[in-house]
């Protein structure tokens, strides 16, 4: 099994790279969002007036 290489390989691998990178970046974004939101809520519950 060899990786496909022809004159359009750069286009193909750019598309594959984007397809793999997007779920990873979105995964980082949503995990950061949920952590920050949870931390804010916990902080507010702790700091009772």
């Amino acid at each position, binding site marked *: *099994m*060899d*990786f*496909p*290489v*022809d*004159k*359009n*390989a750069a*286009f*193909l691998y*750019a*598309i*594959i790279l*984007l*397809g*793999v990178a*997007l*779920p990873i970046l*979105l*995964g980082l*974004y*949503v*995990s950061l*969002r*949920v952590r*920050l*939101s*949870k931390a*804010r*809520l916990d902080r*507010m*519950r702790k700091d009772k*007036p």
Partner: protein
Amino acid sequence: MAFSKWASPVLALFGVGLFTYSLWQGLLVVPTDEFQGGHIFRALFVHVPSAWLCMGLYVGLAIASFVWFIWRHELADIAARAIAPIGAAYTALCLATGSIWGKPTWGTWWLWDDPRMMSVLFLFFLFLGYMALRAALETRQKAARAGAILAMVGVINVPLIRVSVDIWASIHQGPSVIRAEGPAMDWIYLQPLLIGFLGQSLIVAALIFTLMRAEVFGQQADALMARRLAGD
């Protein structure tokens, strides 16, 4: 909340496994299709699922908006808020991968008069417009109502994307999977494509559930803040 906490990692794990299998099959196993321009046709294992997902996500956004609009179900509004950024990201992926695929296949990155490209670009602006509109309004209720109306009206674009290549002259190829006469694609390509689509759908579901948790935490914190400001 408890459901999404354990469901998200499970869905993501299965999704990554299926997507990896699809890419392995698409890149290394399935035979080359010289009729489709050589190896570049393998881009379909990324581009096609992203196209199906961005349309599906907009339909999901419209359904969630409809449910909120009619029954004022708070979870539906939270789901709509979570779907919008993921939908925008997958629409951007569809546009970017389609453009990159277009250059070696059609000799151009973009055509401003192509109905398929323009209708997907319009979908991208609908997602962005939905988020911008919500962000611009001062109360959650006003934002939810205006956003829901935009999402429901904009859903007309989804069937237009589907039929755009049939009713208008387009450089884009016609449908090859969802057709009345059955798929035009050979099973050897169709099987990894459908598995990849399922995998990406599970990943997207995991992302949406996680974002919904973030929205619920944010809403609880806002409610707490409002109660304190009211001196409760």
